[in-house]
């Protein structure tokens, strides 16, 4: 395989769905190349198709046309090579923390001692040792999301797909988990595709921030974030980028709102 090839390659992807007898383009002519080990954020207002794109890469809903390839192979179905972390955590509530983390390994048919060793290592990596026997309902949101991340890491998939994973967390927990994620990413060299609607989150985390437009979902701007890590959210450089992205995002947000008002007027 060509070492220079993209890890994830999205080419001419369209996703069309029907709404009131009309074609709505959730995604239109999306081209996106993501290199191995790159941290890319998809940024946009709600309804811009960023989650649709993520789900297409995950293989949950395939594009209407165009192609998505991972390591040069076309994506046809969900798979453990592209671990997904959901906003709603989606932990299995009937399993304890360690059972949740072990699930993917059991599915893979690994030997018990190997699973145990891997689970122990992940519990330590995410500071979850004291919670291993707990059920998800007894954990805070931040802890739940740590477990969800560990569950995906267990499979050692080269790609992590994250759908607004920290959206439901309070600001402090959010920052802690962002730092944790950066630490894990640096240690484990994963390729990460991360959906968010927070400009600051995108700029804090990503190598590249891809801004998407509201219907049809297209790529409005592909911005390289050339700030040294750890990033200082109060620095002038950070704020300059933040201002730039705010403007882009506001335009889309306005279109979104106008669209909603128009919809309401028709109703």
């Amino acid at each position, binding site marked *: 395989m060509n070492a220079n090839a993209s890890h994830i390659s999205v080419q001419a992807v369209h996703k069309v769905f029907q709404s009131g007898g009309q074609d709505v383009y959730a995604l239109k002519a999306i081209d996106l190349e993501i290199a191995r080990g790159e941290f890319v954020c998809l940024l946009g207002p709600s309804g811009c198709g960023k989650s649709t794109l993520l789900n297409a890469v*995950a293989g*949950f809903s395939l594009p209407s046309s165009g192609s998505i390839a991972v390591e040069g192979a076309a994506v046809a*179905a*969900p*798979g*453990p090579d*592209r*671990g*997904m972390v*959901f906003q*709603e955590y*989606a932990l*299995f*509530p*009937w*399993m304890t923390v360690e059972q949740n983390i072990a*699930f*993917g390994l059991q*599915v*893979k048919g690994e030997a018990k001692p190997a699973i145990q060793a891997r689970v122990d290592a992940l519990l330590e990596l995410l500071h979850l040792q004291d919670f291993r026997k707990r*059920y*998800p*309902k007894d954990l805070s949101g931040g802890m739940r999301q740590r477990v969800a991340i560990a*569950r995906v890491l267990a*499979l050692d998939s080269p790609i992590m797909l994250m759908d607004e994973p920290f959206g439901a967390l309070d600001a402090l927990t959010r920052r802690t988990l962002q730092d944790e994620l950066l630490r894990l990413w640096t240690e484990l060299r994963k390729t990460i595709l991360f959906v968010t609607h927070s400009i600051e989150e995108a700029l804090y985390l990503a190598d590249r921030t891809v801004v998407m437009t509201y219907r049809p979902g297209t790529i409005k701007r592909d911005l390289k974030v050339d700030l040294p890590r750890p990033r200082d959210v109060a620095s002038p450089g950070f704020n300059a980028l933040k201002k730039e992205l705010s403007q882009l995002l506001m335009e889309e947000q306005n279109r979104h709102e106008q669209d909603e008002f128009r919809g309401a007027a028709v109703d």
Partner: protein
Amino acid sequence: MKRYRHAASGILVPLAAIAFWQLLSAKGWVNATILPSPMQVLTKWWAYLRPLEAYDPSMGSYLKWCFSGELPQDAMGSLYRVLLGFAIGTGLALPLGLAMGYSKVVYALFNPLIQVLRPIPPIAYIPLSILWFGLGNPPAVFLISIGAFFPVLMNTVTGVQNVDSIYLRVGRNLGASRYTQFTRIILPAATPYIFTGARIGMGTAFIVVIVSEMIAVNNGLGYRILEAREYLWSDKIIAGMFTIGLLGLGIDTVMSRLSSRMLRWHRGLEQG
């Protein structure tokens, strides 16, 4: 402290009811044949409960002797029928319910028939059950299994249909096969519903056992209170009814303990 006060207030109303009952009998306001005094019922209850003959080691163990009274024999007979009927009803409802919840095809095939049969009360099967199975345990167990069957079936179907699709997406994402998805995601996710169904089914089974014993069997608690009416033994009727109530309460307590033990992960989930 608070707990004790709650327990204390819990016996206030029953005590008042018994006192009122005692008053009615003591003053002779009601005929003792129609409503015997509490003491009379209690005496009869004891007579009904204790072994009929003195302990004789040659007849078997002491424990066996303890349960040789009429009431323990009746209670065990009823319990046996309930458990057997419940096991058969649940044993049939569970696989069918899982299949109907999981597969739209199976659902489409079976649902019309189920919907027609479901509103028929188990009691309405009595004539047919006697025609088919004669008298004794078989018709009773048949009726009880029908009583348990539908609640378990309906809840299992709903439970499987209501499994949050996000869990299935996670399962697919982590590489689970369809079989693994079924056994490790759908089945556990549906258990709260299944347990609710089982508890309702057990309650129905208990109602049906009493009715079926009144008609098709010549022992058991239901038979005994109907028999007592023949002799105008209202004290025995009431003692039998209390026994039925206590046994039902016992069964329901066991069911709910069992389910909250097995659903530890689920308790209080609604609150977040």
